[in-house]
């Protein structure tokens, strides 16, 4: 996917900014607080219909303005689409090819961007829910049924939790049975996806860092995996009833699944340095990128916010080399001009203006 041009109006510190973009690298540099991240945030919003920094649309509006407007021409599988997103305090409206687009999930799955920002580095340090959300979205891209399975599963868990709150234990086995069937589908898809990732993860990690340790994504389901056998899940769920009642909600099931990164078997939270969190996360994103183009010939827009600031010179060199081989459209923010020549365009940002 390629963003041919973009227009950002009344968004963060941009009054109006209109530019053509390079289908290769777009290097955006400038001093602190000038609006580099705001610009790539707009790019990200156009692709994913949300910000990577905030959930509150009000924060995206320019001061004293009631509406921000993002416009772009997006090219996907050789077809040019025009997109407009109007953001107000209350929410957003999406116009795809001048018609309101209601199916947000479909939109996101067609125009997805992958980001790598200072906040993303915390993915494996933050609450498990963030990791589930992240992987849910990627797996949904791989398998459109997954999205509907999640919706169905969420409804079942809500019903079970409601029973637990009301203390009606007689009906629990019925909902456990519903849950077991739905859980089996989800767990199979998650497990298959993680296996796919692990085919490439170590290799890409080595390419980016020059290090030869094995990097693995580890899927730790809440239910014992047991060959995805529904009857086994039902036994486990029924057994957990005392704990369900104690906590007042369903304690077992895919809504409590975990994902970890393991570097030579060592778990992220316990062993990783700041730099390792960064480079392993970058490796994971690049692996996802590779899966997307190997399976779907889809090249998501890649956004790297402040990527080079915390990596050492040796790693930087590897990363640069790696970037040169990517076919994606890339956005990079930095405080300085690129140290090596790159195919693409260079933009300088000063006070919400491109110069």
């Amino acid at each position, binding site marked *: 996917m390629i963003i041919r041009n973009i227009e950002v109006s009344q968004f963060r510190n941009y009054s109006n900014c209109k530019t053509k973009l390079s289908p290769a690298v777009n290097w955006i540099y400038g001093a602190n607080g000038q609006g580099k991240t705001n610009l790539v945030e707009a790019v990200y919003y156009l692709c994913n219909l949300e910000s990577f920094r905030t959930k509150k649309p009000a924060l995206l509006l320019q001061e004293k303005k009631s509406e921000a407007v993002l416009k772009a021409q997006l090219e996907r599988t050789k077809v040019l689409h025009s997109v407009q997103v109007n953001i107000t305090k209350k929410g957003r409206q999406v116009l795809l090819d001048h018609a309101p687009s209601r199916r947000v999930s479909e939109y996101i799955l067609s125009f997805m961007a992958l980001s790598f920002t200072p906040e993303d580095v915390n993915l494996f340090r933050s609450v498990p829910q963030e990791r589930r959300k992240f992987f849910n979205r990627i797996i949904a891209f791989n398998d459109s*049924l997954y999205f509907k399975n999640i919706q169905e599963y969420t409804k079942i868990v809500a019903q079970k939790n409601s029973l637990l709150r009301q203390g009606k234990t007689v009906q629990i086995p019925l909902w456990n049975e519903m849950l077991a069937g739905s859980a089996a589908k989800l767990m199979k898809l998650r497990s298959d996806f993680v296996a796919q990732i692990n085919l490439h993860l170590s290799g890409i990690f080595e390419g980016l860092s020059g290090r030869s340790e094995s990097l693995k994504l580890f899927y730790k389901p809440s239910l014992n995996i047991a060959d995805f056998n529904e009857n086994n899940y039902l036994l486990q769920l029924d057994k957990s009833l005392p704990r369900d009642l104690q906590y007042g909600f369903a304690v077992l099931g895919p809504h409590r699944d975990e994902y970890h990164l393991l570097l030579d078997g060592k778990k992220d939270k316990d062993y990783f340095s700041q730099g390792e969190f960064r480079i392993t996360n970058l490796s994971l994103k690049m692996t996802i990128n590779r899966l997307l183009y190997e399976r779907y010939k889809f090249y998501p827009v890649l956004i790297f916010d402040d990527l080079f600031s915390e990596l050492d010179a040796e790693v930087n060199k590897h990363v640069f080399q790696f970037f040169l081989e990517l076919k994606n459209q890339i956005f990079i923010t930095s405080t300085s001009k690129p140290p090596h020549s790159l195919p693409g365009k260079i933009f300088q940002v000063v006070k919400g203006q491109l110069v």
Partner: protein
Amino acid sequence: MQIPVALERLVYEFSRFPGVGRKTAQRLAFNILRYTSEETQNLADALVQVKEQIRYCSVCSGFTDVDPCSICSHTGRDQEQVCVVEQPNNIFPIEKSGVFKGVYHVLMGAISPLDGIGPEQLNLHKLRNRIANKNINEMIIATNPTVKGEATALYLQHEFAGNISKITRLACGIPAGGDLEYVDDITLMEAFSGRHTINT
């Protein structure tokens, strides 16, 4: 100009209908203002009569004006086959199609703890009695293919497994005359998993 009180009252009553907003409610109300007094009386009579005459059948709980309803008392229908549905209005599309010659049972809802509906809130007592006292050899579960409907189907399956020789569930899949191109993923998945052999 302010809307006169009597008109406003009618608009309000219409806007309580499902799927009717204020705009539509106003349009309906204005339309009634164009009625002759005879037409208006007919509408009012119809409203009063529907409440007076339509009740739930004491056997199947479907809508009826005679008790038991014309389906339950029909001698030509197969009394040994019971089709279980969630709501009384679910009976009409099945009847219209004419494919089913048995009798019905309305549950008056589907299991949903979130809405405070468990098996004890459903019309199961009468169903148990029917099964105990009559010779029923097949229960066709026609609850909706939603989480609530599926949970209800599962409940019925467990509850009556020992009492009825044959319990069946309506098939899910591609609509007749439909084009594969327009079928959604879940329906396709159901259609694939529910496929049947034809070369026997």
